[in-house]
């Protein structure tokens, strides 16, 4: 019964944290609302135009983006860790972010700094890197560990290529690309997040549909095949869903690492039976990115950090912890 109580407390605590985050993110600072009455005016639409725009057009869309992108990254991480049966299996480690950056660099170099071109470039780059990893790792089927190793290798190669590209293109292009590569939720308007949201919702739906198959694949290829799953085909589809989730998220915000690595593991520790669930990973991912973006906006007095910088710093610490734990 204690685990039930613990589980209940975890949920209550999570909800409280989310409410506090939402409250502070939306209503605090810049003379937006001074008391509950001011907040009520904002909610009921009686506040003045300037304040409404700040809260509902700028801040709410940014908070919503953090939630959706965080959930997408969390699920993507859960999918990868399940496929490679390893907590290190994450799209950050296996080079899809770096591939997406390559795509953005090329798009900015060829077409200039156009938002939707960069988005498409990032998606193509991310998927391209994934296909490379998949092809190089293939030998009579796929072992999870080989996917990670090949992913790290492809990631290193593409990083070198990206640096060469940054040095070759004009300074302006390189600066724009570098800004993108920090990963940020700045300027996430409803117009920018909505198309991505539709894609992400569709991909999450597919992931949930394939959840049972994913769980059976975790028991080993032979066991899954014996239960009637076409192992290689299913793995390819699930991997494409995972890659697409990361690619879409990365395309609109730039690379935000650590979320997909950590969210499933944290979700597992919070689950009463220590299972990684897709929904749990999505919730933790959303909460992590919302918190990280809050720190990014309010952590320093006079500057807004890119959220990617916050997550990568926290992620570095978490990775060290994970490696020490695994090493024991």
């Amino acid at each position, binding site marked *: 019964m204690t685990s039930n109580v613990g589980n209940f407390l975890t949920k209550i605590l999570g909800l409280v944290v989310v409410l506090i985050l939402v409250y502070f993110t939306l209503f605090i600072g810049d003379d937006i609302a001074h008391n509950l009455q001011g907040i009520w005016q904002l909610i009921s639409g009686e506040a003045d135009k300037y304040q409404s725009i700040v809260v509902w057009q700028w801040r709410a869309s940014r908070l919503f983006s953090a939630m959706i992108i965080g959930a997408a990254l969390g699920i993507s991480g859960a999918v990868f860790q399940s496929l490679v049966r390893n907590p290190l299996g994450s799209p950050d480690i296996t080079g899809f972010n770096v591939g997406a950056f390559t795509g953005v660099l090329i798009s900015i170099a060829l077409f200039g700094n156009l938002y939707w071109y960069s988005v498409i470039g990032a998606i193509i780059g991310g998927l391209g890197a994934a296909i490379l990893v998949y092809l190089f790792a293939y030998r009579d089927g796929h072992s999870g560990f080989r996917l990670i190793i090949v992913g790290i290798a492809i990631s290193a190669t593409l990083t070198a290529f990206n640096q060469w590209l940054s040095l070759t293109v004009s300074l302006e292009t390189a600066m724009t690309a570098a800004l993108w590569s920090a990963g940020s939720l700045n300027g996430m308007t409803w117009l920018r997040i909505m198309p991505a949201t539709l894609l992400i919702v569709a991909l999450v739906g597919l992931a949930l549909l394939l959840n*049972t198959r994913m769980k059976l694949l975790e028991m080993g290829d032979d066991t899954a095949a014996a239960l009637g799953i076409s192992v290689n085909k299913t793995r390819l589809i699930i991997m494409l869903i995972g890659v697409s989730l990361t690619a879409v998220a990365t395309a609109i915000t730039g690379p935000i690492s650590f979320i997909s690595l950590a969210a499933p593991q944290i979700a597992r520790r919070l689950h009463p*039976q220590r299972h990684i669930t897709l929904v749990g990973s999505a919730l933790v991912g959303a909460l992590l990115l919302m918190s990280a973006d809050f720190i990014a906006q309010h952590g320093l007095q006079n500057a807004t950090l890119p959220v990617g910088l916050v997550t990568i710093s926290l992620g570095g610490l978490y990775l060290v912890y994970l490696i020490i734990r695994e090493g024991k």
Partner: protein
Amino acid sequence: MTQQSSQLSAVNTAETHTAKAALSTKSVTLAYEDNVIAKDLTVDIPQGKFTVIVGPNGCGKSTLLRSLSRLLVPQSGEILLNGENIHHQSTREVAKKLGLLPQSAIAPDGIKVIDLVSRGRFPHQKWFQPWSEADQQAVELAMQATGVIDFAEFNVDQLSGGQRQRVWVAMALAQETSLLLLDEPTTYLDIAHQIELMDLFQDLNQIQGHTLVAVLHDLNHACRYADHLIMIKAGEIIATGSPNEIVTEALIEQVFGLSCLILSDPISNTPLIIPRGRKTAN
């Protein structure tokens, strides 16, 4: 083939004319990429019997089992399940007829026994189809038959090796297939658990009417429990038939290069193989 083995297979063909083959290979070539394990291999698994495949390490017995369970595509020849080419049927169709207990099964962290056994129902379920009465019944019967129903709510990692293996058998049983393939099911178990598991397989075969195929290392277990023994060496079938008919000192010498004495097992009246070892050789 030696003269002896061709005589033996002649005897064997006479015998299998009466028993229908549930599963068979027709001159298959089995290989991992360029590494050919067996050439022109023809094997029949008789319906309703307990077939055991034995042979020295690396002889291709596990490879044969993998191909019989559709995990390995033969480079040539075909594999027939109930008379139909197994690769012309979908994985899911095959999974309704043929269950497999692989060596490499990984139990997910913290999974309950009942949840693991329930996963055996996957081939019978369709998209969006809720858990049915039939599913529940199959899972309960499987847990009863394997004696794990008392642990249903336990975590699989809490169980002993022998209990855990029975949970995997229960999962394969929940699949409700008439054929069950077992890849070295008793490896890593102590002798009492090995016998317990072999007795369970015997019950599944004799009482529940499952056709069983097992790869085993222990020759004496093979001789005691098998109705039908298949001896393989270097990718070739050396002898097939009931243990009493085929197991001789000469055959063991030929297949395993082991000098031995064969007695009659006082419990089961099957061949009991006593290795001579180096000390008492000659």
